[in-house]
């Protein structure tokens, strides 16, 4: 409990001090809200525009969650396929890398043209950004099984399937969870970037479109409000995945076990 307090208090203090300094600076220099709004004006915008911002948040969240789920399922499936043989991995891994290194901003317009349904197009964009860390980490994990444990199972006459379920999959878990934590943030970024590119209006618009829209209308406080909602979502995803990671590994993995001083 004391440890938790020590971890929470300092960043919160920094946050409060920072926000106060920001507000004071904005007021003292009389900076107009259309250049840089203070935190108070941003919170006001957040409350006032909640009715439009909240549905947009839900849309962005839905795309992010969908992309992360698809990245997890397909990422693990691809990693399992890669782990079956070195040949499959060597043949296909370069293409996973190509998908990863090509900037999503550059291919998003194409995907949006090819895929008629905007929501699906956005989902695909976010998925492309999110799936690579899961594939590469899980593949690494599946190939990192202790050789003596593999020998032992061979000695007891285990089948390929048993080796996979009893050894390779559990030893890949910390690697997979590490990848998942990166992918969580990337799925959100992918979703937001794709929304920017799509830029479509209407009720089915995510937070990125709200930022664009507010920018056109010089509603800078609302822009900041939407931005903070995105950041907050990202932090929430990170914290959630960190918790999952911790509870999955706390009994056995070095990364999750507290060192005794």
């Amino acid at each position, binding site marked *: 409990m004391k440890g938790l307090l020590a971890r929470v208090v300092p960043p919160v203090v920094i946050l409060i001090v920072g926000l106060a300094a920001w507000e004071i600076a904005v007021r003292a220099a009389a900076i107009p809200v259309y250049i840089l709004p203070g935190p108070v004006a941003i919170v006001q915008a957040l409350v006032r525009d909640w009715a439009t911002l909240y549905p947009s948040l839900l849309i962005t969240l839905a795309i992010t969650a969908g992309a992360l789920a698809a990245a997890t399922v397909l990422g693990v499936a691809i990693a399992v396929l890669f782990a079956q043989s070195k040949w499959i991995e060597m043949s296909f891994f370069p293409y996973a890398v190509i998908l990863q290194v090509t900037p999503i901003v550059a291919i998003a317009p194409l995907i949006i043209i090819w895929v008629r349904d905007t929501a699906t197009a956005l989902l695909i964009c976010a998925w492309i950004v999110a799936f690579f860390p899961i594939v590469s980490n899980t593949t690494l994990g599946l190939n990192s099984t202790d050789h003596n444990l593999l020998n032992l199972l061979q*000695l007891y006459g285990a089948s390929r399937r048993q080796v996979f379920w009893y050894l390779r999959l559990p030893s890949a878990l910390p690697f997979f969870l590490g990848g998942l934590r990166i992918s969580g943030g990337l799925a959100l970024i992918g979703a937001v970037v794709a929304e920017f590119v799509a830029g479509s209006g209407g009720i089915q618009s995510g937070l990125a479109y709200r930022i664009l829209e507010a920018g056109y209308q010089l509603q800078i406080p609302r822009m900041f409000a939407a931005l903070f909602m995105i950041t907050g979502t990202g932090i929430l995803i990170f914290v959630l995945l960190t918790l999952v990671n911790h509870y999955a590994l706390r009994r056995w993995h070095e990364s999750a076990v507290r060192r005794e001083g």
Partner: protein
Amino acid sequence: MREAPPLVALRGVDKAYSNGVVALKGLDLAIGEGEFVSLLGPSGCGKSTILRLIAGLGELSAGALEWSSVQHEIGFVFQDPTLMPWASVFDNIYLPLRVRGVRRADAAARVEQSMEQVGLAGFGRAYPRELSGGMRMRVSIARALVAEPRILLMDEPFAALDEITRFRLNDDLLALWSSQRWTVVFVTHSVFESVYLSTRILVMSSRPGRVSSEVALEGKRDPSFRTSAAYAEQCRTVSARLAQAMQS
């Protein structure tokens, strides 16, 4: 010396690795039922290779591996405990039975029994990282026991442990061996450990690995034996043989 056919024998075995290293050359050895045989020698003399070949974990380059019976359950204890860190002590020991398709509930009694045999009763729910090095090695031994092996292959199992823990595990191992009537093949580079444990020591020389001499040991093993004159005498004999083997 033995009338019955050996439990397992290596006849004229060569083993060369793909990198060109010749680990074994023309090796002959036979392990009789109920023996406690130590393979003693310097690092790189092919001791571990012999264990791996007996376990079926490698191909012979030449020669033959002969078992006296078709059915031969093997237990293997590595130098590291080689436990699954994500699984509890119980599940680690259960692994060999799980591979054979025994259900967890049906295996429980046997798992508990082998935990008791190695002094781990009550530790079933602990995780490997919560245990000391000696305790982890006990888990590893219990895992080998649970499959009820006819032959137990041990590859320097206590090399990484402190002397106090090592002595205690030596005694526990001897007690298990005399009560269970296994056959044990024990790899070590410690003269004292091999003399204390074995009924027969095969002294090995390296490059390429072969058996340079053989010492049969008599006498009852118990903690008082460690300080006896007979023990010191036998250690002297074996040390001399080892020195000879290193020179040849």
